[in-house]
């Protein structure tokens, strides 16, 4: 007779609620008339709100035989994932209706991917982590290809899937190797076992392979190559969602894995992650310099931001962990916002994905343009926006905790930020200085507007009064002490 272990369902309530919402949406969609899809949005949002509330109030703890942990990091990851999932739901409907892609499954996939990201934050076991990663990834592959019949969307889905599966295999081999040397996949046991081994080639290889799997999701150089193509090909709402949700999942997992679990072995991974972050900052920003497409620009920008956040991972001090959390929040807000603005535009019946399409936007939609300007300024890391606070936190942590290497990372970071100013401000400049672009129409959907407004407010709020966010992030950093 099999006796189920003691487990606490309230602990996993947020994820359960989101999965449940996804199921409800799936079912309701079957019976729902096409023109009443608004119900799906409402249901999704309600579910997400409930989950968020549960995530905020549910107690900390470990359950499911040590597979699942709820602590400050998990909570941060869950709230972030819920936030970006809500945004992912909100930005979609108008666009999907325009493109004739309006299907209930879209929301199901968004919700499931969101839940996957939440679980990555709470995984306390490598297999758990792997499954969560797949729960996050597979819906994203499909979302990228949602614009059926559009070769670009198909190509995006195909490339994302192919490379994702390739990277997953590496990740899995890493899990296998670590299991081989330590006999366990549970993170705390793993940490003690690896520490006991000292320098062990298989363990090192296993950890390296884990970096690759997560780095792929986070679009870290040299595993970033999929990102520009996929973002460009994916429908705008999907690109918006995947650019943030995958990052949230990957980074909470990286935080969980490296500073939190393997903090004692920092000597082994710090230099490597530091170099990777430097390369990522440089390549991302330089490649973005000459882009002409808005989506590709944001794609390379997201790569660059991966580099900045990686700095925090590589440093791995409590302050750095807190800085990464702050950065993730800011990144999520500003990138979602920047995509949301683009979703509101349409050129010649298609996506407005060229930078020129934003020409003269300020004259036609001043508030939209202002919000975009805020996003661009924040992405560039300039005060008084959240982007500055985020970068400040990361670089301060690097200088404080990273020794000469940290100083070098901070220097590379600030200098590449200067480069990024060039391409971000070009967008803002075109909006304000250019003639109104022909063929570009503005679809003022209240939902998209709400997302733009909210994200802009968040970006400005964190820029001007960041204390609340940094205090919360510091709790996460406090896990290290």
């Amino acid at each position, binding site marked *: 007779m099999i006796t189920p272990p003691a487990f606490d369902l309230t602990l996993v309530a947020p994820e359960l609620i989101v999965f449940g919402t996804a199921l409800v949406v799936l079912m309701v969609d079957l019976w729902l008339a096409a023109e009443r899809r608004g119900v799906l949005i409402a249901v999704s949002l309600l579910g997400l709100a409930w989950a968020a509330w549960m995530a905020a109030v549910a107690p900390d703890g470990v359950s499911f035989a040590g597979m699942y942990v709820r602590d400050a990091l998990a909570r941060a990851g869950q709230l972030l994932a819920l936030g970006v999932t809500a945004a992912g739901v909100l930005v979609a409907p108008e666009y999907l209706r325009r493109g004739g892609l309006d299907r209930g499954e879209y929301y199901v996939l968004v919700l499931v991917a969101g839940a996957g990201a939440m679980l990555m934050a709470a995984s306390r076991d490598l297999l758990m982590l792997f499954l969560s990663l797949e729960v996050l990834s597979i819906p994203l592959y499909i979302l990228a290809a949602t614009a059926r019949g*559009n070769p670009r969307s198909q190509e995006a889905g195909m490339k994302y899937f192919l490379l994702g599966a390739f990277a997953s295999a590496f990740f899995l081999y890493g899990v296998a190797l670590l299991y081989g040397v330590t006999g366990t996949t549970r993170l705390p046991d793993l940490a003690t076992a690896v520490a006991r081994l000292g320098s062990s080639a298989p363990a090192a290889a296993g950890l390296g392979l884990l970096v690759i799997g997560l780095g792929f999701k986070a679009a870290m150089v040299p595993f970033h190559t999929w990102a520009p193509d996929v973002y460009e090909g994916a429908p705008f709402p999907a690109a918006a969602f995947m650019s943030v949700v995958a990052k949230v999942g990957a980074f909470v997992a990286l935080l969980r894995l490296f500073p939190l679990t393997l903090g004692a072995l920092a000597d082994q991974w710090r230099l490597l992650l530091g170099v990777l972050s430097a390369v990522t900052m440089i390549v991302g920003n330089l490649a973005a310099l000459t882009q002409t497409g808005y989506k590709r620009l944001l794609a390379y920008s997201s790569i660059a931001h991966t580099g900045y956040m990686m700095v925090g991972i590589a440093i791995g001090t409590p302050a750095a962990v807190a800085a990464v959390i702050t950065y993730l929040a800011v990144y999520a807000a500003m990138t979602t916002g920047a995509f949301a603005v683009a979703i509101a535009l349409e050129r010649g019946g298609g996506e407005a994905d060229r930078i020129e399409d934003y020409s003269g936007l300020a004259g036609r939609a001043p508030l939209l343009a202002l919000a975009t300007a805020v996003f661009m300024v924040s992405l560039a890391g300039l005060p008084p926006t959240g982007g500055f606070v985020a970068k400040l936190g990361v670089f301060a942590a690097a200088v404080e905790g990273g020794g000469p290497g940290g100083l070098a990372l901070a220097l590379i970071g600030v200098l590449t930020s200067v480069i990024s100013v060039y391409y971000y401000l070009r967008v803002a400049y075109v909006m304000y200085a250019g003639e109104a672009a022909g063929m570009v129409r503005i679809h003022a959907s209240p939902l998209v507007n709400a997302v733009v407004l909210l994200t802009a407010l968040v970006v400005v709020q964190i820029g001007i009064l960041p204390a609340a966010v940094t205090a919360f992030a510091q709790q996460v950093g406090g896990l290290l002490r």
Partner: protein
Amino acid sequence: MEWAVFVPTAALALAGGVGVIAARQPVHSALALLMVLASLAVSYLLLAAQFIAVLQVIIYAGAIVVLFLFVIMLLHARSGEGPREKLPRQRAEAYVFAALYLGVLLAAALGAAAPLASIAAEFGTAQQVGESLFTTYLLPFELASVILLVGIVAATVLGRRPPEHAGRGKG
């Protein structure tokens, strides 16, 4: 005794592996893959993983390879590779780096090797695996079901006839 079984299966697996990536026709690849899968199932038996071996045969050989074959037939003759190699250096580079990687991987994997433990008779039985799945691995097990659900949704999303004026955006 075990060697006698292992050596041929390993040889078959390797041959199958080469076959998968070298065959001209996808059908041949699929058959080679089947060969690998079957060989591995035998290996699993040698490693006291009866249940997994069974799963291997049922799921992989029975479902996945069949799915491949099904799609190959669906796409029929035109499913070959294009005539022109667009990445002339790719092949050579792939071999070189893969060889290097093999070295790394071998070093890592062999470094992780240890003497086999002594095991109880019921090790690797369906009951033991199932028990583990429903106790320790309950949550991952549920997650696996979610993943399967996603697969179903994917099939419905991607399998459905595209909408009339689909494909906003360029192209």
